[in-house]
């Protein structure tokens, strides 16, 4: 008889352990899967939007100073190097260390001066975060909307955020389903193909960033 009870008792005990394990560990498992980036990604985007708005609304400083402040924002919120590298695609391997360094610098300048030029057009738009979708444990998309100054349907802006632990960065901005990174990548690879050699991209970038920078300086 005890031989019979023992297995039953064991089976029940085993079941209990399983149930306990599920109940007790479930939040832990969920947290390991879902965790930080689900809250971290929207917080990052909100942080960038808030700081961006105060930068845009502060008209007391010169355009050049605002451009450099924007560079600071960019470094804190965006994985600029990862973006620059992906944008270059297969030509990355054809650049030597010095070319890569210069490319990083020029890419950042292109973004900074290209956008800083348009800061004057800002008319008080605000960004609303709609929802966050986890693409993987290390990648999330934050969906947001920006109201148009003229009314009508808001502009959809999706932010792709990547990261681990508590370090997150924006890796792409998708405006009305058009990815900035994707567009740059096509643009850059066409520039290289038109000239026939990767190093020519650096010449074009050098000329363009110098021109943009001069225009911003002149706007003071």
């Amino acid at each position, binding site marked *: 008889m005890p031989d019979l009870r023992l297995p039953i008792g064991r089976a029940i005990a085993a079941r209990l352990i399983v149930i306990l394990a599920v109940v007790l560990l479930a939040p832990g498992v969920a947290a390991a899967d879902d965790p930080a980036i689900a809250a971290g990604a929207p917080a990052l985007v909100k942080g960038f939007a808030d700081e961006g708005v105060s930068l845009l609304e502060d008209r007391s400083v010169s355009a050049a100073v605002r451009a450099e402040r924007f560079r600071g924002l960019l470094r804190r919120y965006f994985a600029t190097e*990862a973006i620059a590298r992906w944008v270059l695609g297969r030509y990355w391997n054809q650049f030597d260390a010095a070319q890569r360094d210069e490319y990083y610098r020029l890419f950042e300048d292109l973004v900074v001066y290209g956008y800083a030029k348009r800061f004057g057009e800002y008319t008080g738009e605000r960004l609303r975060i709609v929802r966050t979708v986890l693409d993987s444990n290390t990648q999330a*998309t934050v969906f947001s909307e920006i109201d148009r100054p003229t009314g009508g349907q808001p502009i959809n802006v999706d932010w792709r955020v990547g990261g681990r632990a508590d370090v997150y960065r924006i*890796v792409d901005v*998708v405006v009305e*389903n058009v990815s900035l990174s994707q567009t740059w990548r096509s643009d850059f690879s066409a520039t290289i193909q038109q000239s026939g050699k990767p190093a020519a991209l650096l010449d074009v970038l050098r000329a363009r960033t110098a021109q943009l920078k001069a225009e911003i300086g002149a706007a003071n």
Partner: protein
Amino acid sequence: MPRSVRRLVGLVVAVSMAAAVAGCATPPDRSDAEAYAEFKALNDPLEPLNRTVFGFNQAIDAMFLRPFADFYRLLLPAPFREGVHNILANLRSPVILANDLLQGEIDRAGTTTGRFLINSTLGVGGLCDWATDFGLPRHSEDFGQTLAVWGAPEGPFLMLPLIGPSNPRDAVGLAVDSFILDPFGLMGTLDMAPEWMVTMQYVRYGATVVDERSQNVEELDDLQKSSLDFYAALRSLYRQYRTSEIWQGHPPAATEGPRFDDFPSLPAD
């Protein structure tokens, strides 16, 4: 066949012949796998010709379209332009409805019908878009998208004279929308349109071109300034935009793009 259709057919024939003569981009050698993959992904075997057409389009734009659009924006106040835009959009309702139905989108077909009824009456011939306030937001639809939903491949990228970025699927779609699905266009195709209607159609097409150009002034300026190769940027933008439209604004998430999780500078957890 009415003159407009014959002209379009003539244009397509001329472009195809020019394509045959002007030649195609030389594909890279297959032994260079990366270069060959990139060539396939760009899907622009007619690039040299397309770039020539793009140059022509830009010249026409600089000479006529852009100045006209600028004048339009300068001389007429925003509410007036909004009204013109709404009327033109309302006129497109039958085309949108036909494509909603052809794609089996019954809900959207209902929205389009409701919008047309409300805006044509309360909205005074489409001048005001009240339907959006009634919870029937505007959406776009065209036969190029319908073909995509039906599974037709897009074909190679095409830069059409005067029309701009396209591909064979969208070019066919544009012709079907303009000459068959559009009631006024269909009457013209069947030579059933009275003289005044033909004239009004030309006015409508002209107004559509000016309206669209005037709506895109900043966007195109931005793209031109921010890109190194305007043609390539426009090509990429057009493809992404069409993909999004085909998926009704919710394209599948990109599987590739920059990532931040595989960078060694990050502290491991």
